[in-house]
């Protein structure tokens, strides 16, 4: 009995030592691989405030109290929310682009189902869905190393057959290699828990020294430690090529100007750390910010807007051919709106994901249409937003 257990512990320790060594020993090709960071803005971002259509004659009629008048003009029609200062600078450098009136195929305005569709990349919500990015990396060798969830619990986009690594800022004490070596064989016997600890021990080599990065679990500045960590991991030659971060709180039902002012300032603060940290891989990086839906075109009685449909996506990074807004603008006239209330979607967000998978991550179109985003092809409207 004792002998068997001791052998199991030795095996656990050897696996740990090997795992720490390997991430550094990747091929040069892996270090030149493209990087993709997906930021999921939960709550339904108001695209009409972040990228206000100042040139649309109906905008101020629909938003008499909440139109973003101090937006910075991007082109003849659209502006950028004044809180997003760094994005404005990237726009000027041709490294930021946006897509307007984009949405998932889901139309029923529930946050949770819409997020399920956004992250699964499937036509409708499903309780058993896997994430589109998980299905993508599953097609590549050694998939668990390719992607990483940033945050304590992984987003659906990264859940599925491949157990991906995850990382979150922590101020808890380090467990220590000796204790982990003793626990590893106990956890290995548990089919649910075992794989998680094995992955975690492999990640340890990568994230050593990143434990105490000042997480504010509650309140302001929530996004910065996450984006700072994501940048360091993506910039590490042995780190992941794909990462997903959640940005929460965008459900602007009431007092939207104040709420969006705080959230954009928080995001801008986080983007500063992100852009600085991505330095060595910046030229190969695309960061894409999406949300489950947009908000109703007209403001409600509380200086907010209720759940809507057509929304926006923002792309930035050294691999973005930016300085332009893609997608067809449907207009805000009464007859242009979906169900008489929402910005009408003119493109499917899965087409944008397919373009990123094809033109940036270099997945074959066939694998995309069959497995990653079933039935979807790269959307030609987005191809020229990505630098080849």
């Amino acid at each position: 009995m004792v002998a068997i257990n001791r052998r199991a512990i030795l095996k656990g320790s050897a696996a740990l030592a090997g795992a720490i060594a390997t991430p550094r020993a990747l091929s040069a090709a892996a270090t030149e691989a493209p990087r993709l960071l997906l930021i999921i803005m939960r709550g339904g971002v108001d695209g009409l405030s972040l990228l206000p259509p100042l040139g649309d004659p109906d905008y101020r009629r629909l938003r008499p109290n909440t139109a973003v008048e101090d937006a910075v003009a991007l082109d003849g029609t659209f502006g950028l929310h004044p809180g997003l200062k760094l994005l404005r600078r990237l726009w000027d450098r041709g490294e930021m682009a946006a897509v307007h009136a984009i949405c998932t195929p889901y139309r029923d305005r529930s946050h949770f189902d819409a997020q399920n569709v956004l992250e699964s990349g499937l036509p409708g919500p499903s309780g058993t869905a896997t994430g589109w990015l998980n299905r993508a990396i599953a097609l590549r060798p050694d998939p668990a190393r390719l992607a990483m969830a940033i945050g304590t619990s992984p987003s659906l986009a990264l859940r599925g057959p491949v157990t991906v690594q995850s990382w979150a800022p922590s101020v808890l004490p380090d467990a220590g290699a000796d204790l982990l070596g003793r626990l590893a064989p106990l956890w290995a016997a548990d089919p649910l828990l075992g794989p998680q600890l094995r992955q975690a021990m492999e990640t340890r080599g990568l994230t050593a020294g990143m434990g105490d990065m000042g997480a504010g679990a509650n309140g302001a500045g929530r996004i910065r430690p996450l984006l700072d960590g994501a940048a360091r991991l993506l910039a590490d030659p042995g780190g992941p090529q794909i990462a997903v971060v959640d940005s929460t709180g965008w459900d602007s039902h009431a007092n939207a100007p104040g709420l969006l002012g705080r959230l954009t300032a928080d995001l801008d603060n986080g983007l500063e750390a992100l852009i600085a940290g991505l330095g060595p891989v910046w030229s190969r990086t695309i960061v894409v910010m999406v949300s489950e839906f947009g908000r109703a075109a007209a403001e409600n009685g509380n200086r907010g807007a209720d759940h809507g449909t057509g929304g926006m996506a923002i792309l930035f990074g050294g691999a973005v051919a930016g300085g332009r807004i893609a997608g067809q603008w449907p207009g805000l006239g009464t007859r242009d709106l979906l169900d008489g209330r929402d910005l009408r979607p003119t493109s499917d967000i899965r087409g944008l994901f397919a373009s990123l998978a094809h033109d940036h991550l270099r997945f074959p179109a066939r694998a995309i249409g069959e497995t990653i985003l079933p039935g979807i092809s790269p959307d030609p409207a987005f191809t020229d937003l990505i630098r080849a």
Partner: protein
Amino acid sequence: MVMHDAAVAATRFGFGLAFGGDDALAPVTHNDLIDQTRRAPSTDHPAFAGLRPVHDLVREFMQVRERGGDPAIIELFRGPFRQTYLDEATARLKVAAGSRDGLHERLVHLWSNHFTVSARKPIVGGLAGAFEREAIRPHVTGRFADLLVAVVRHPTMILYLDNAQSFGPNSRGGRYTGIGMNENLAREILELHTIGVDGGYAQADVAGLARMLTGWSLGRPGKSALPGGFLFHEVVHEPGDHVLLGKAYADEGAMQAERALRDLAALPQTARRVALRLARHFVADAPPQDLLERLTGTYLDTGGDLGELTRMVLADDRAWQPQTKLKTPNDLVVSTLRALGPASVNRGAVLALSQLGQPAWAAPSPQGWADEAGAWLSPDQAMKRIEFAVAIADRLGDRVAPDRFAGAILGTQLRDETRDAVGRAESRTQGMAMILAAPEFQRR
């Protein structure tokens, strides 16, 4: 018939076994559990002493706001409300870790999560504890309809989902101020609290219920009998009949929406979702279909009697299969504190919940926290659970003998491999960390 094992009784239906000779925390029997389903949880636990009722907190908030009239008021209140949040969250942990009625505490956490209010909205942080004590606790073994009405009337929910600002556009108040409707509360009642997103409602039903709920608001200081408490504010109520799911509700003031809520509670779609909540929590992530059907039937036969449904779960052998559920971070922290005794509860325990990703009353959205293992499985979660065990063990030092501790808190769930590995630990502290991090302590 399976054995009603003491370790399963304590960990599946409560927050676990305790170490040490405290009689109040002696293992519960099957009969103790049945007894708890026949009465409501106590609301005067000593740990609740000194906590303020919601109307008191809201009234103070409103008085300061009326004096200042400044939108920065939330900032002003962040300090005191943060203090109230910490006091409330500490009291909640003390009660869950120290009450003999563990099933009651588990039911309170379960239904509080079903009807999530979240401190992600700053004002809710200070009011969430009062919400749980006042709207949830008295009703978890009563009728679901009473629980629902108590929740929707509670000032914390009214503030969380913006109903105090929802004015009927044709009401006198709406016409005078130009403030319109906000359908947030109505939508979440349908989507999350009652019939569910697949329950067969449309946008018009959301709007209909929102119209009925206009006027469900809070009393203003100097203008009502209970400032800060629930008040039906007739002057902003949208007049007329309103329709929900094909049925017209006559304008009877606050009774209009209350009748609609009680009708929603009586629907089979709601029955199925309540059945799933209970079965998923006490049996397995994917509970057996036949049990769900029987629970749904009992719900409809008994007018939604939650005590009766809980007894039906207790009577099912499958609820007594050990170790089928992964502990959530909240389960893990509370069961660790319970194992060590309620005296171990302090502010650090409240912060540990945040570190593990499940801060008290701070779910990311009104959907609340997931009750399935998948949502709580990640390599980072795994490492944080082990680090939490290390933090607790470091604090205990060598005061506790690991072998006795393991036997007391895991009972029949302790595996030989864990016992052997703990026996070989390099120190008592490491042995304690191994027990608290052992896979059988991560499950319930």
